[in-house]
């Protein structure tokens, strides 16, 4: 596993700050060697690094998976980059894929699960979405791609925060969390986010699914309904009782300012304090992804399976599902099942009913 080259995907619409971030990655004195795949034609060597142009050549696989679109150019470029690899020595510390502003991140991610050679040589590390604090609300209103980029991400960089007021930032964060309850939001100005917040995130690594937080559908700090947790960045008592709060509240309707806007994409959080029947759950998840996989951008979960001492973890990108039994539950750990589905037009009540019907 460790000899695979990690791949980080950067998404974000025009002006969000991708180029600034890429320039920082390429010019900062980090002693690493990166290959950057960009949309522009041409190839430029910057010191140790390599910048390669790609074509956004999206195509459908004839494999019966209706949403299985992949990026042919990435298969070609990644396979080509791997030819530089010497025996036992990776050619690059990481590969960074920049997508165009209008790109759908799904095909980019799926490429790393579908192609045999790409899968053997590389591992998709994470998808980071950059959004511009000043203009993101308008983009989310008028662009399906902008909403999907946010919903798909493992990490969201809320950039250019110096250009927005604290109230605007809170409203933006609330909406971003509604679209994607899984991804941490990092605030930045001029893309000044530490590189270790972008690279090496293990966003698709089952072993690293340590926590899935259904209660992340959480209004921003200071707003009504906010639940204090370790993400607030202030000290508080961990036994304040959010273990006891009612998970049925599940999904807030877009925060305290009550803007009527309802995004077509949202995160649905599910949880259950009773163990699930392993067979029933797997059958439900398989059917769900087969039927709704086109609309489900990402899903992650940690499941307490009846009669099993280990945690069942899963993650999915559209119809591509990976699941495994992970480490054992700790003695003092709370055993419960939780899952988050992020997608278009999700029927929250049906998801909840289906999930709970898997109880052992």
């Amino acid at each position: 596993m460790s000899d695979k080259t990690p791949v980080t995907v950067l998404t974000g619409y025009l002006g969000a700050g991708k180029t600034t971030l890429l320039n920082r990655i390429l010019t900062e004195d980090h002693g690493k060697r990166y290959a950057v795949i960009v949309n522009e034609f041409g190839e430029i060597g910057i010191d140790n690094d390599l910048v390669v142009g790609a074509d956004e050549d999206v195509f459908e696989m004839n494999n019966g998976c209706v949403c299985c679109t992949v990026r042919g150019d990435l298969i070609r470029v990644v396979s080509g980059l791997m030819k530089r690899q010497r025996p036992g020595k990776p050619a690059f510390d990481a590969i960074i894929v920049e997508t165009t502003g209008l790109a759908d991140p799904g095909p980019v991610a799926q490429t790393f699960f579908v192609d045999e050679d790409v899968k053997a040589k590389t591992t998709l590390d994470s998808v980071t979405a950059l959004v511009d604090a000043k203009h993101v609300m308008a983009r989310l209103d008028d662009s399906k791609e902008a909403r999907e980029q946010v919903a798909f991400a493992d990490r969201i960089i809320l950039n250019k925060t110096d250009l927005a007021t604290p109230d605007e930032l809170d409203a933006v964060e609330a909406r971003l969390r509604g679209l994607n309850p899984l991804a941490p939001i990092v605030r930045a100005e001029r893309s000044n986010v530490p590189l270790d917040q972008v690279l090496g995130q293990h966003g698709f690594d089952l072993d690293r699914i340590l926590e899935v937080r259904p209660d992340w559908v959480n209004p921003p700090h200071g707003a009504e309904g906010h639940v204090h947790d370790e993400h607030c960045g202030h000290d508080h008592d961990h036994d304040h009782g959010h273990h006891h709060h009612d998970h049925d509240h599940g999904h807030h309707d877009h925060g305290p300012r009550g803007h009527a806007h309802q995004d077509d994409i949202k995160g649905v959080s599910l949880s259950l304090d009773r163990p699930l029947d392993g067979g029933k759950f797997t059958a439900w998840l398989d059917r769900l992804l087969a039927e709704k996989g086109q609309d489900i951008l990402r899903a992650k979960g940690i499941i307490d399976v009846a009669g099993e001492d280990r945690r069942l973890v899963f993650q999915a990108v559209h119809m591509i599902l990976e699941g495994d039994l992970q480490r054992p539950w700790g003695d003092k750990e709370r055993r419960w099942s939780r899952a988050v589905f992020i997608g278009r037009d999700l029927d929250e009540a049906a998801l909840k009913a289906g999930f709970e019907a898997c109880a052992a």
Partner: protein
Amino acid sequence: MKTFTFDAQVTAALFDATGAVFALGDGAVVFESGERAEAHDGAVLCACVHPSGDGIITGGDDGKVVWSRRGESVVLATAKGQWIDAIDAAPETGLVAFAFGRTLSVIDPADTHFRRDFSHERTVSGVAFDPKGRRIAASTYGGAALWFARIAQQQPTMLKWAGSHTGVAWSPDGAFVVTTMQDNQLHGWRMKDQRNMRMGGYPGKIRNLAFAANGRLLVTPGAQGVVLWPFEGSQGPMGREATEIGYDEASLVNLVAARPSHGRVAAGLNDGRVWVADPAGQGLDRVRADKGAPIVALTFDADARRLAWADEDGQAGIADL
């Protein structure tokens, strides 16, 4: 058997008129006799034998097409910094065709002023001259385009089939064009009526293909054994079933080698083993019995008397059969 250890991946193995030649991921071209040419600043992505039979022509990720002979390398063409993804040469006409991005270019090493550039809607993944060296098939998304090599202004003949085609070859009689596809199948067209042929059922990637036995057999990797499709008569494999030889459920065949002039077939496996099967012989002749890194290059000389192979860790060999 001669063996070699390279501190780079081998990206192609070929036999020119004199002996075996290896092209490497560090841009070098190494001849069996020991000469080494630093052909590219980057990796060699594709290679073919020079139409004259003297040395090889490589395409690199430095955007150059380079002819390397023992003791000398010259740049034949460039592609504005774009990767050269595929290359082929035609001894019959002396022409060389290569692809970068969506462009197919044709050059004549004997005439430095001759160059044709043909553009496509999607990226070109493979190029192949027909047996007479007059037409070129270029595989791309959605099928293959057929071009006349020397004509400047033309519309290509499109052989259409939905999906991503990753490589292309002509049958030795020029009657069929066959492509490998991203979703582990082959597609073929009969030239006289463009009738489609689907050849599927592969568990793995089909990385190359070759014709053996006067073109009567199409030989492919992508399965636990070497897959042989009958190409006899005008029907080709239509309505007929493939056979598989050397089946081993523990491994997949990564690459095959065969020559139209001979019935001999070679397989390079994903567990590093290499074997040869003779049509008259029984069983498999193990050229490399030990397991190792996946085989990434495999080729016969023109008469299928010698076999060159290389694995992903830079181990390579040449066997006299």
